[in-house]
């Protein structure tokens, strides 16, 4: 069986700040990491591989700039078998729709039985790319996966909702989107890190995918959605602190809740 995990390299958003003058993101010195949900998807794929122990392989696919190969190396060091980096000027500026078109074109070429993605990325938080890849591949999706079991050609998924779980049986080929809770990622081990640097990462640009890709559907110009502007929120004024008797404190809280339409 062939498992493909789609990952994204993201800035550690806790450290991203906006330049108050230019309104641009300050990314200098902000560390890049594998998106949390995606890392849990990698871990889940590796566990399935180890459990089945039948020649099942784990392939990692990442679309991003050349530097994103660091994320792929990390995935290889965790134990993945092979890695693809989709990187081209033509891909830049893609929204979720265009991104899903590029990734699904690559997946059709790579081949797959089971595709795993993270539920959402911490920089964009859209949760759209996974379902949109599934749509382009014409396979069923189960998103918000919290537990996954493979039985032959069938996958049993515990799918989370706000108020319930569905236990869903789905036939491969299919796509699942992983919650961070799905599987606690392992650490890279020393041998794995050395192996990871000996493995090749396949880099595909536009030419490698052009047979299945309409240039009008990708990149900034091919994206249906465009950012009009991005901006920082107004700095909130310094907070107020009260050291008053409890009754009074409670009244202050109630007034504030009312003022902010929280009650």
């Amino acid at each position: 069986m062939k498992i493909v995990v789609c990952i994204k390299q993201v800035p550690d958003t806790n450290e991203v700040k906006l330049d108050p003058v230019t309104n641009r993101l300050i990314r200098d010195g902000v560390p890049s990491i594998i998106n949390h949900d995606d890392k849990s998807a990698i871990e889940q794929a590796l566990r399935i591989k180890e459990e089945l122990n039948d020649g099942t392989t784990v392939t990692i696919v990442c679309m991003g700039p050349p530097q994103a190969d660091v994320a792929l190396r990390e995935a290889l060091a965790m134990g993945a078998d092979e890695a693809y980096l989709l990187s081209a000027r033509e891909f830049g500026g893609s929204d979720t729709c265009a991104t899903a078109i590029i990734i699904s074109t690559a997946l059709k070429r790579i081949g797959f039985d089971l595709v795993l993605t993270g539920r959402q990325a911490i920089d964009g938080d859209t949760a759209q790319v996974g379902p949109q890849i599934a749509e382009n591949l014409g396979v069923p999706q189960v998103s918000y996966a919290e537990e996954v079991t493979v039985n032959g050609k069938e996958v049993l998924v515990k799918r989370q909702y706000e108020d319930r779980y569905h236990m869903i049986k789905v036939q491969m080929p299919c796509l699942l989107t992983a919650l961070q809770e799905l599987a606690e990622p392992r650490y890279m081990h020393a041998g794995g890190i050395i192996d990871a640097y000996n493995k090749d990462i396949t880099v595909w640009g536009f030419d490698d995918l052009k047979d299945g890709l309409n240039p009008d559907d990708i990149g900034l110009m091919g994206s249906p959605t465009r950012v009009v502007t991005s901006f920082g929120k107004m700095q909130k004024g310094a907070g107020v602190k009260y050291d008053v008797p409890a009754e009074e404190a409670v009244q202050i809280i109630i007034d504030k809740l009312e003022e902010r339409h929280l009650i």
Partner: protein
Amino acid sequence: MSKNIESAKDIYVVAEQRDGKVAKVTHELLGEANILAKDLGEKVIAVVIGANVADQAQEMLEYGADEVIVVEDDRLGEYITEPYTKALVQMIEEYDPNIVLFGATSIGRDLAPRIAARVHTGLTADCTHLDIDMQKYFDFLKATSTADRDAIERKLGMDDKTLKMTRPAFGGNVMATIRCAEYRPQMATVRPGVMKLVEKQVGKQGKVTIMKPDLTDEDFNVEIVDIAKSEGKIVDITEAKVLVSGGRGIGSAAFYGELQKVADRLGGEISSSRANVDAGWIEKARQVGQTGKTVRPDLYMACGISGAIQHLAGMENSEYIIAINKNEDAPIFEVADLGIVGDVKVIIPKLYEALDKYFEEHQIN
């Protein structure tokens, strides 16, 4: 560019229901759609989808829909991605909407992207603000942001009637406004809890159309083998609008019961610092911070939490922060909008009583 830019009309709200009960976010969307529809000179159409849901049409009209389309099939009782997608794509092809709105729930965020990819249009996730009218959009920017108004006016002009969809990005560090100018419908999922309800108009009339979607058994391509409704709710604290969060200062696991009562009153959830998770007082899924979840609710109430940097990392982007701590030098006060120096064990029960009284006086249940 899609061909239907000129013809596409009206704002469609896809209603969400579970077990026959309409989700609150649907009411919120109808309220917001009403405001947008006036600015556009178009109608609000609610789309109800499910099994035996026709009797929800009246509720849609009363909460602000001008018309209702009921997409009904006996097999649509529980949400399944493919048949819901197929049925709603048929609806879109038949009716040619200008705008389609969904709640940004675990259903909407699964369904809307699949539909958008199938009809090849843009979708903006998790919006917290929507505008049609440029003047209103500028008023909003002026009140909340550092955005460069002139540059936007040069780009769009004052007559622009596309949907301006504003959402947080980069963990809430940045806001972005997004448009889908060249494709229709313009689609967005909207975060629950951010849009205001309009006053319910009891007995309001409007056209109701029943649509039988064309579905085959093959469309039901996954099988739901079991449904477990969680006794307590299953929570994803990152989606909660209000978090009442307890730290070591609450003194015991049992006190989470008191925090829960306050959270229930505010329509929120309880969460925790790591200290209490490590102590086994509460489950790990509710931990906020660097090694827990990053949250940005409308209200984060930190009760007996010192405000260690690893904790702040997970909550400092919350819209409004109230901190209650008996140590007036606790670092949590540096990020709090409202700081209360005092004993949580005294204040929380009194706060619950006061909320109870408030709701009674305002006749809210």
